[in-house]
Each structure stands twice: as structure tokens, then as C-alpha cells.
């Protein structure tokens, strides 16, 4: 890279831009009541929200892997009519306001929804359940995994798959023993991104699954509600989520932070 000095105005605006992100983070760290942190974290409500958040976000990531990897494979490898449209639709949740996603999920899986009415007949109800949380998080987070894995599949050297086929490997063996290991970095990055997004999910969750402590109240919901009743507790929880995000960022640094 060619280095140069920034002209004054660009430098000033860039500094303001950076401060815009850094000052709130400092605020969070400075204003967190460190003395009460342990107590705030150890409260049963917080622990419940933390446990639920972890369980739901990990389940959502698992679901996204099971459904998203095959979807990414199809996008990367198969040319079918309407591919562009379908791909655009499944990418939409990345830019869609999550609350709209929640409403759409209600209209599909709610008691009187398109599929929900059938599910109700079968005795299955998804809205306002923990399963509903997983569904809402998967809806919002899976596109991150699909796009990352698809990019990995597109850039991998497919001739390794040819080599495996000449050795007598079936399609399934090629997929599990050659394709997946070769795209492992993309798979890992996609899963981490997806998990981080699921962990922070708020809008779709509260719309589709509601806010019941112990059942659907995840960390972001708890943080928001604590702001009214126990601001210090919400600061502590926010810090926890911030730390998680930092760990994710450091874990994926090779992908995003480059050599700078």
C-alpha cells in the first residue's frame, strides 16, 4: 500500500467517524458498575437469559448449518430457473428490518398462518415458544452463513473433487471428505457470523416469540427491559455481549482486519 499524509479535512472527518464508534464503547466500559457486576450477572433472571440466549443461538447456528450449507451448495453449483430470484429472497433478511421478519414469521407460522394452521392441527405451536426464538434467530442469521459458505464453494479448486471422483468416491464421500474440509475456513467464519447475529437478534424474536422470562427472553431483550428497572444490570449485560462480539472479531481477524 502507498502511504501518505491525510489532508486536514479528511483527517478531521475520519477522526470524528472513528470517535463515533469508540466513544460509546468507552462510555459502556466507564459507566459499568464493576463492583456490582458479579451480583448483576449472578442474578437468576440474568443467568436464565444468558442460558436461553446461548441455547437458542447455538441451536439456530446448528439449524442454519444443516439447511444453509446445502442451500449454499445449490447456489454455487446448480443452475436452475429462478436461481437469482430465490437467492435474492433468501438473502433479504440481511437487509430487512428484523421486526418485519418477525411479522412475516407470524403470518407463516402463527396459529392462523399459512403453515401455522396446519402445524396447529398437528398440535405444534411455534410462536411464543423457545423453538420460536430459534426460528426467528435462524431466519435473520442464516443468510450470513449461506453467503459466506457459497463464496467459499465458489473459490475452492473443484479439481480436488475431480481427483476424489477418479479415486472412486461417491458424491456423498466427495462432499464430506473433500469439499467440506476444503471450505472449512468459510464454514467456520459463516457459522461464527451466523451465531453472533443470532445472539444479538432482537426485533424478529420479540415480534414472533415475545418476551417471556425463561422461555423467550434472550439477552438482548433482557438488556432492553432492565434499562427501565435496573440500568446498571443492563450495562453489565451489554458489556458481556460486547465481549462476545470482540472475541468473534478477533477470531475472524484474518478475514476482516487484514494485515493492517
Amino acid at each position: 500500500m502507498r502511504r501518505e499524509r491525510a489532508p486536514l479535512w479528511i483527517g478531521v472527518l475520519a477522526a470524528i467517524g472513528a470517535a463515533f464508534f469508540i466513544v460509546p464503547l468507552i462510555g459502556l466500559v466507564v459507566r459499568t458498575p464493576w463492583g456490582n457486576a458479579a451480583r448483576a450477572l449472578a442474578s437468576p433472571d440474568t443467568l436464565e437469559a444468558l442460558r436461553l440466549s446461548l441455547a437458542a443461538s447455538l441451536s439456530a447456528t446448528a439449524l442454519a448449518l444443516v439447511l444453509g450449507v446445502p442451500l449454499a451448495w445449490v447456489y454455487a453449483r446448480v443452475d436452475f430457473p429462478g436461481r437469482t430470484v430465490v437467492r435474492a429472497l433468501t438473502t433479504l433478511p440481511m437487509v430487512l428490518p428484523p421486526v418485519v421478519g418477525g411479522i412475516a414469521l407470524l403470518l407463516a407460522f402463527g396459529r392462523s398462518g399459512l403453515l401455522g394452521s396446519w402445524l396447529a392441527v398437528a398440535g405444534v405451536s411455534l410462536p411464543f415458544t423457545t423453538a420460536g426464538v430459534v426460528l426467528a434467530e435462524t431466519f435473520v442469521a442464516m443468510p450470513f452463513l449461506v453467503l459466506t459458505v457459497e463464496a467459499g464453494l465458489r473459490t475452492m479448486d473443484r479439481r480436488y473433487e475431480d481427483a476424489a471422483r477418479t479415486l472412486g468416491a461417491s458424491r456423498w464421500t466427495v462432499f464430506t471428505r473433500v469439499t467440506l474440509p476444503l471450505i472449512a475456513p468459510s464454514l467456520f467464519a459463516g457459522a461464527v457470523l451466523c451465531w453472533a447475529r443470532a445472539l444479538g437478534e432482537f426485533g424478529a424474536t420479540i415480534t414472533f416469540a415475545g418476551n417471556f422470562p425463561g422461555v423467550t427472553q434472550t439477552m438482548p431483550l433482557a438488556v432492553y427491559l432492565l434499562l427501565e428497572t435496573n440500568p446498571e444490570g443492563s450495562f453489565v449485560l451489554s458489556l458481556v455481549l460486547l465481549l462476545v462480539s470482540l472475541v468473534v472479531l478477533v477470531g475472524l481477524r484474518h478475514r476482516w482486519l487484514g494485515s493492517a
Partner: protein
Amino acid sequence: MSLDVDVELSLGGLLLDVQFTLEEGDVVVLLGPNGAGKTTLLRAIAGLIPIERGRVALDGDVLEDTAAGRYVPTEGRSMGFVFQDYLLFPHLSVLDNVAFGLRARGDGRVASERVAREWLARMDLERYAASRPSALSGGERQRVALARALAPGPRVLLLDEPLAALDATTRATVRRDLKRHLASFRGVRLMVTHDPLEAVTLADRLIVIEQGKQVQSGTPVEVTERPRSRYVADLVGVNLLRGEADHGMVRIPGGAVVAIAGAGEVAGAGSGSGSSEVFAVVHPRAVSLHRSRPEGSPRNVWRGRAGGIELLGDRARVRIESDVPMVAEVTPGALADLGLVEGAQVWLSFKATDVAVYPA
């Protein structure tokens, strides 16, 4: 065991159209310039590219037949393939790479690893069993690729430029090893190369393809002694002319006439087919150069202009531009005596007895 190949397909401007049969006893080398379609053909035989028209059959066992709508996928063809850059699986150890084919067909881990170790021993690679392929040198990687392809016991071995990825110093050693391993394999062997030295040293039979078409085949001696295309003639380093045989002469299109020895009866030419098209080969050493029109016996005397001059050790090759472009090989001394520079006018001559003629 024999492999019937009849392949027609087009890929990115190349129209591939070849037919041949490979026998188990021969190491067959597919020789041709870059872009001739050699790799494409190899991939088509392995089923990695669909053919548009044709048939691939191994011992009467039809692997692909467009007329019958039959296609056996690559994994069912039992064809070992050594790729140009080997394509060893980077995430697996050397041992797991060699065991891959055995595991893929369902052999147990223990049995597969035992066979893989035997192959590594045969290739003198045992000490690398636990290494990743990236830790190996080019020559070692090539042997791993060969062991991996052979371990499952394929009926056919296909090799795509197996020496091209190596540097010149290791190539000679690896070529010698490869010749030994090819000799010990029982099955059909087909190797692709663009390197004539590799082709001639490894092949029992050569098939030359250019621009997707087969132009010549035979033993290396047959091919190099009787080139049938400009490409082969250039590889061997001889002048190749093509024309009509006519009573002691060969008439080259464009008007030039080459006198040949004897009555001009060319074995095979004109008999039956009605055509008397022939090739005439003149070795550059048989062509002499003169500053003025030479006197004396040579019956072929042409005037031309010196083109490129190339020094090859103690010989100089001079390209002569005339009605029929020719290359002459003279000593550097003769070159100095002639005072030859590029663009200078020059006479060339060669004896009728130095022209080898055979039917086209």
C-alpha cells in the same frame, strides 16, 4: 485389456474429434502442442467432461455411449488419474491421501492403511506417511500422486503432464522412476505431454494430436522418422514438404519442384487410392548454402533470403525464406565464410538422394 476411445466434443473454441484403441501392453503417449486438446481428451475419457458424440469402452464394457445414452460416472470407471499439479488433498496426510481410494470404495481403515503403506514403501516414501503433502518436494508429491492413483487397483492409468510441474534438475530422475512404475502397472496406460523428450523416452506408442485432431500415431521411431505434420517435423528438426509425386519429382503447391532419387516410385503412393500425395523430408544438415548459384551435381537448387540464424552448440541453423521455406544447418565457420547476415540473398542446394519420400 483394451480401451476404445471415440470422442467428439467442443470446448471453448476447440473441436476435439479423435478415435483410437489402447492396448494393455503399450505405454501410449499423447503428444501435442499446448491447446491441442490433450488434457480435455484425458478428462473426457475419465468421464469428468461429458462427450457430445462418441463412445468409451473398456474391454467391451461400455463406459459411455452417446448413441445408447449410456454414461458411467467417473467414480465407477476404475481409472487412476495423475493430475498435472497432482491435486493431493491438502487437508489429509500423505498416508490418508494414498488410502483415499481404498476407503472410498468401502475398505476398512486398517486394511486401507496397510495397502497404502505398501504403496508408500514401493515409492520409497514411508517416512512421509504422517506428513502433509505441502511438506514434500515436487518429485515426492508426484510419487504420492502416482501411489494414490494406483492404490485402488484401477484398470486404466491416465497421466496428465506428470513431469511438467517439476524443475529441470529433478525431472530426469523422476522420469526414470516413472518409466519403471509405468512398466510395472498391469493395465491400459495413457500419458499426456507436450515435451517430445518425455514422449520419446516413455512411449511404446505415440499419438500426436493437433487442434483436436489425431495427425499421426505409431512407435516413436516411426513417428520421428516419418513426420506427418509441421509440428512433428519441427520437434524432430527436419524440413517437411508436401506435394504430388510425379516421375522422379515432387511438385510442391506454389510451383517449386523437388528432385528425388530413383524413378520416383514411392511405395504405396498412388497405388489404389488414386492419389500420389507424398511427404518429402530433408534434414537441415543435407542442405548446403552458397553465395552464388552453385555448379555441379545437386539437382535441387533454390534461391532465397536468410531469415533467422540460430546457434546450437557447434552448429548454426539458418532459416531460408523462399518459395518453400527451408532450414539449413551449417558450421559456424561456414556461416562466417559466407558472410551470411539476416536478410542476405543466398542459394541453397540439396541432393536428390537426401530426400526421403513417403506417402501422405
